[in-house]
């Protein structure tokens, strides 16, 4: 029985993801700036588990790092290097043709999943150098793989991930401002959002369905975290953080304009939120909600001077 091509691709993606989780779980704890051989994982928006391997610093600008994507997709083409298993302990093929430069700050410690020995990095440097000079040392087998539609599909996916990463890296905020870990946010409902006591709970109606729905709502409420920022005494900005992102809420007198809020989309572009006024006019809700990107989000509040807040998960 032949497994359809797209299914094989999905299977490979799933296996890669599993391996990656395993590797991440065993990643040695190391602090300090990113170094050659380090592996990182970023949100790329692609349905693929790809690690990004630090090849080297830029010769003229040490604030830039050359990253190359690696995965355990089984096909190896001319621009790829399959790292020796005895050195890395698993299948890891680096797609040297898709390498890119990113700022050092982009590779945050919390996104690091592990590292490979430096001798394997040397192999990669040589390969990249050859590719840059237009030389090919590909075997016949690798050349045949190059024409394999499955391989083309996989490389297309890796290329899209690289483009997305590149775009984000180019637009990455330099200043993270006040960095707040998610755990430091409070679960206590800000006074402006707290409701007055109501009549009996639906769950008390004895209906299993309503009880389940009530619990789901209660869980969603309980999972929300808050951070309050006083804006020059004119009102309060409340950041509501949930599993899917962070939304801003403005609580202030109707006459006071809510401050401009700028965040980023999944692809790294900046985006100014628009304010929706509530039915009673006491609260305003920012649209849209800013998504988590690489486990963090950076919001700039256009006050004088501007304030930047980064929340990290």
């Amino acid at each position, binding site marked *: 029985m032949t497994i359809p091509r797209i299914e094989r691709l999905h299977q490979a993606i799933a296996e890669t993801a599993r391996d990656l989780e395993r590797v991440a779980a065993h990643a040695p704890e190391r602090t300090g700036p990113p170094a050659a051989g380090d592996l990182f994982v970023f949100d790329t928006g692609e349905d693929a588990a790809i690690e990004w391997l630090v090849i080297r610093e830029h010769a003229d600008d040490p604030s830039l790092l050359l990253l190359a994507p690696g995965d355990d997709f089984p096909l190896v083409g001319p621009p790829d290097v399959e790292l020796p298993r005895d050195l890395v302990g698993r299948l890891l093929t680096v797609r040297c043709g898709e390498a890119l430069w990113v700022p050092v700050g982009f590779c945050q410690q919390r996104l690091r999943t592990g590292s490979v020995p430096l001798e394997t990095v040397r192999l990669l440097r040589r390969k990249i150098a050859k590719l840059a000079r237009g030389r090919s040392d590909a075997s016949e087998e690798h050349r045949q793989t190059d024409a394999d539609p499955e391989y083309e599909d996989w490389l297309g996916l890796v290329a899209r991930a690289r483009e997305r990463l590149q775009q984000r890296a180019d637009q990455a905020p330099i200043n993270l401002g006040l960095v707040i870990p998610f755990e430091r946010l409070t679960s206590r*409902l800000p006074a*402006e*959002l*707290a*409701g*007055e*006591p*109501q*009549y*009996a*709970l*639906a*769950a008390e*109606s004895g*209906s*299993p*369905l*309503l009880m*389940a*729905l*009530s*619990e*789901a*709502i*209660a*869980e*969603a*409420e*309980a999972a*929300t975290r808050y951070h309050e920022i006083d804006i020059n005494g004119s009102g309060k900005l409340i950041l*509501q953080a*949930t599993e*899917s992102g962070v*939304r801003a*809420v403005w609580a202030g007198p109707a006459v006071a304009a809510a401050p401009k809020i700028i965040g980023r989309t999944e692809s790294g572009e900046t985006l100014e939120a628009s304010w*929706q006024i*509530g*039915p*009673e*006019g*006491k*609260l305003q*809700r920012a*649209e*849209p*909600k800013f998504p988590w990107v690489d486990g963090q989000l950076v919001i700039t509040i256009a006050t004088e001077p501007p304030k930047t807040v980064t929340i990290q998960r």
Partner: protein
Amino acid sequence: MTTSNSASLAAVADEGLWHTNPVWCIDRLLEAWGRKDRSWVDQPELLPALLRSLLAQGIRLPTEALQRWESAGLLDSTDLDGDSADVPSPGVVGLVIDHSSETAWVVPLDIEPSRTWSVDSNLPIRPPTVLQDMLIRVVLALDMPQAGAVPERFAFDVRERLGRRSYGPSMHIAGLLAVIDRQNNNPTLLRRACAAVQPDGDRLVPVGSLDKKLGAFWREYGRGSLLVRPPDCPEASAYDQHFDEIWQVGSFQELARALERCELLQGFLSGAPLDAADVETAHSCLRRLTFAEHRYGEALNLAGRIQRCGYDSEVPARTGREIRRTTADLYRHLGYYGEAETLAQQEVRETKASKASSYDDQAQADAIYAASYYDPHCFTRMVELLEQPWLAQFNENELLVSPETRVMVFNTLARAYVILGQRGWAELFRRSEEILREREPTDLPRTWNYLAHGLLRQGQLEEADSVLVQLESLPALTGFSRWICRFLRAEYHRSRGRKWHSEEMEAASGVKKRAGHPFGFYFQATARQPDRSQVDAGERFRLAQDLFLQDAGSGDHPNILHFLADCMRIGAAGWGNDAVLWSDARQALARHLEPRSGCGLAEYYAEVWKALGDRPDRDTADAFLRRVPFF
């Protein structure tokens, strides 16, 4: 927030509505949340949590509603990871209006095969056999060879989850389609379907509040798989774009054709022998049609189909015999005296030959056989069959047979005595009455009707009146007995020389009756009452004629109803002094009165027939009609 949001759920709707009409509930909830800033702020966070929980409970939501909430900024495309399997697939659903709030709701129907038909008491499908009747109607409407099958062998249990009582016939076709959906194992065509038609006689007409109902369907399910709607109905056709397929049907026959085109009726057309469960279900239908609803034509059709399919070896022989007896009864009720007699005679032979028989079985068979001689006017033969063989024995030992069998013998014999003018008939009816008072009081009206008929024919009007008063005072006099009682009351007044009519019987004119002949009896009696205008009397005779012909068949087989219809023509000609009609009616009656073996008409009417001259004459016509044993 937790308290207020949770409380909002119950405030919006009960569990039934949340299960069946979640989109409506969510819209109401969002509306409630949207009134206060504090809950409005949380809408985009809580809505996805609510939707995920609904999905976890197996409650599906249409893409269209999700997109609408997304456009309103309340939902993010990434909030729900659904696939096509998450689209609602409720099957065929009912649509109802809550008249207090003018809100339309969808009513998903849960159907399971069952031994008997039952429908959730909240549903407006009452009695449950309405569905069975409609199913048979569409199957038989096809007029195909397979219509020899017995779809009456199937029965279903129909439940709903909305939990609100509804009324009217608007959900009948949805119920029928839901049953067909279940029998076909939920085909794609019926995955999300609804009907905007309801029965009106043979026609299918638009349901009320159509726009609101289809709007509710769109709200809860989005794009539908099938809309069954009336033709030329702009209100319904406005929704065509929201359905994959549209059936425009204006009658049961058109609906049947549409179903057949999609091969959705095949599952009901099995001609295989009936097993024990099949027979139980089909026999229940036969009993209902025969004894409860007096729809003799349909019952006979069913009995014929059951016998053509036959039974498998597990079916008790007793059941087969019961069905054959019922068939004989049906032939008799419908006036097919030849067939009734043949079947009854066969039963007598088998009962007497069987080692597993009893006096009770034999007496019953003889009573049915004797009764089959009433229509062909062989009253002496009836007496021969019952008087010496059974009545004489009962006089010696009443316990020889069951009380019910004695009632059969007493009543049948007494009816023959009445016509023959033989003494003892009143005593026999009284003996039946005694048994029934103790054993089965609900069966008393039939015996009282026989008694009143006998008293009227014998001119004992005071006594007849008191029996009829007794009958009329019964609070729950059922259809057939009530119609006969009304006829007898009309006959009583005729005999008293008075004009009288029953509003109930008059109102029924022009409508196809479940059984036409009781109404025929009534209209002939009122036609013959004094002080009626010639036009009124003529119209009543014509109505009676039509009613007799309603179940009389084509005339290929001798049927006493044809004779009665021709009697009405002679009445109309006599009362209307219509020479042409008189001549035609006489010729027709002459054919009925030709001497034939096994038929006593010629002998019975010899005298009054001779009196009917060439010219129309009301008195001789009345004398002829007076002689008719049914009047």
